[in-house]
């Protein structure tokens, strides 16, 4: 192992960057430790950009590090690299395989080359901390905890959690939805949606066959808990004396208002994501078949068309527009999208004329009847105006017609 005490050494950064791609794993590790040791993992965006952007595309080259139960990731060691053999550590191999499956999903389904669509390296850190009940995306890589064995277990066990975290990276490089309130809830929802899709894709499941759960594999028998979240039925993933009841709403009427603090979950980003998660579930199951094909395409294109401040209503409207662009005005897919948003309390405001009536649920006869009456009344007014303008109706004829109503 290179013992250069590089906190004070004169090794220039451009040489260290070249060494990141060295064929020798120990050389790569040493270079990475040096770079990480002189920069904060998240705050030093300029270092990350300078470090990774100019490198030749790596097509999602994977490196898994063992944090050896420390919270200081600069002391992590390489446990498995892209060209290395499987590890004896199951967590390392699961992270490695999960990264590969997620990357393959984005490549095959959306023609996306890794997280940034430029072949970004995929770095993962396993065994972070002690009793760490979490996994997160730190802007450069994904970090996994082993869980405390009581509330949660090893987070590498869940493919949808792995894909959830990597999708935060996709979101960061596309819409970059701000992580608070509605835009933050959309950010979380994107990760749940595509996290679930990666799992469904890997199992070749249809929308009806999928469990639509996030993190089902990280729960323990100690606590009554199905999963972290359910896209199919927000608010039902868990209900026990320790955690309380799953607080996710499934409709805008139950939107939870929280402050933008850590204690407030940044304005409820993990909570209100239930509303848009439910919308996607409804779209996917209404269309049927593989959810990543039609529904997934609509959502992915809508993510690309969104921006940092996109709110729920704007995103709903975008999905309607994208559905039309991809599948045509009044298509089954577009109707499913408009109907889904109606069901969760977000009526699309950008609905093409050919889809107005279809956007209303066929079983919602009251709403449909009211709409039909309004259209009929408008049509009658237009007819009357037209006749007057054209001078085809005498006052006597108009009176006769009025008595007939």
């Amino acid at each position, binding site marked *: 192992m290179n013992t250069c005490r590089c906190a004070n050494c004169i090794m220039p950064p451009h040489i260290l960057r070249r060494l990141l791609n060295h064929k020798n794993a120990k050389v790569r590790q040493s270079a990475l430790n040096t770079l990480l040791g002189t920069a904060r993992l998240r705050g030093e965006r300029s270092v990350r950009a300078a470090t990774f952007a100019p490198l030749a595309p790596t097509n999602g080259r994977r490196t898994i590090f063992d944090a050896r139960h420390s*919270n200081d990731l600069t002391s992590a060691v390489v446990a498995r690299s892209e060209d290395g053999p499987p590890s004896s550590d199951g967590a390392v191999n699961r992270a490695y395989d999960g990264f590969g499956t997620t990357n393959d999903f984005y490549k095959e389904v959306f023609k996306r080359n890794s997280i940034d669509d430029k072949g970004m390296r995929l770095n993962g850190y396993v065994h972070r901390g*002690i009793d760490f009940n979490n996994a997160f995306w730190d802007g450069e890589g994904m970090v996994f905890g082993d869980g405390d064995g009581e509330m949660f277990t090893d987070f590498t066990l869940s493919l949808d959690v792995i894909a959830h975290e990597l999708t935060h990276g996709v979101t960061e490089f596309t819409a970059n939805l701000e992580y608070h309130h509605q835009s933050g809830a959309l950010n979380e929802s994107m990760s749940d949606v595509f996290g679930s899709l990666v799992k469904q894709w890997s199992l070749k499941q249809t929308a009806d066959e999928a469990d639509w759960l996030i993190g089902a594999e990280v729960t323990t028998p100690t606590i009554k808990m199905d999963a*972290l979240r359910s896209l199919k039925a927000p608010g039902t993933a868990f209900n026990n004396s320790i955690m309380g009841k799953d607080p996710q709403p499934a409709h805008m009427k139950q939107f939870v208002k929280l402050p933008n603090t850590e204690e407030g979950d940044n304005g409820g980003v*993990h909570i209100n994501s239930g509303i848009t998660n439910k919308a996607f579930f409804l779209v996917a199951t209404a269309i049927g078949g593989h959810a990543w094909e039609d529904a997934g395409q609509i959502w992915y294109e809508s993510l690309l068309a969104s921006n940092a401040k996109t709110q729920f209503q704007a995103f709903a409207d975008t999905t309607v527009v994208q559905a039309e662009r991809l599948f045509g005005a009044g298509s089954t897919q577009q109707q499913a999208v408009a109907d889904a948003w109606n069901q969760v309390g977000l009526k699309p405001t950008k609905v093409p004329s050919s889809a107005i009536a279809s956007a209303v649920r066929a079983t919602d006869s009251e709403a449909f009847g009211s709409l039909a009456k309004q259209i009929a009344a408008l049509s009658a007014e237009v007819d009357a105006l037209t006749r007057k303008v054209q001078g085809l109706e005498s006052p006597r004829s108009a009176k006769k017609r009025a008595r007939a109503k």
Partner: protein
Amino acid sequence: MKISLATSGGQAAGVFMRKPPRVIEVEKLAAAEKAELVGRLAAAVAEAKSHAAPGGRGADSMSYTIDVEDGERSVTLKQSDAGMPQAFAKLLDWLQAHFAANK
């Protein structure tokens, strides 16, 4: 001296785990343990003073609040998973190991 550790947020942020902070009575520790803890604490405090702002809030990050009370003096250290500085990380290592060993 009393040191408490509270955590919030993370993947399971919606869970609202209302666990109370975990507390260490420093004077009850063995001499070597005490020395190590105080040394790591001092480094973390110095590190906090030298940084303009705490690390960023990454997606699904957990946040950690370490409160230190020593008579009438007190200090609070706060960091999140993303961008956690080194000395704070090493202090958190010690605290997590201590709580795991004393469950």
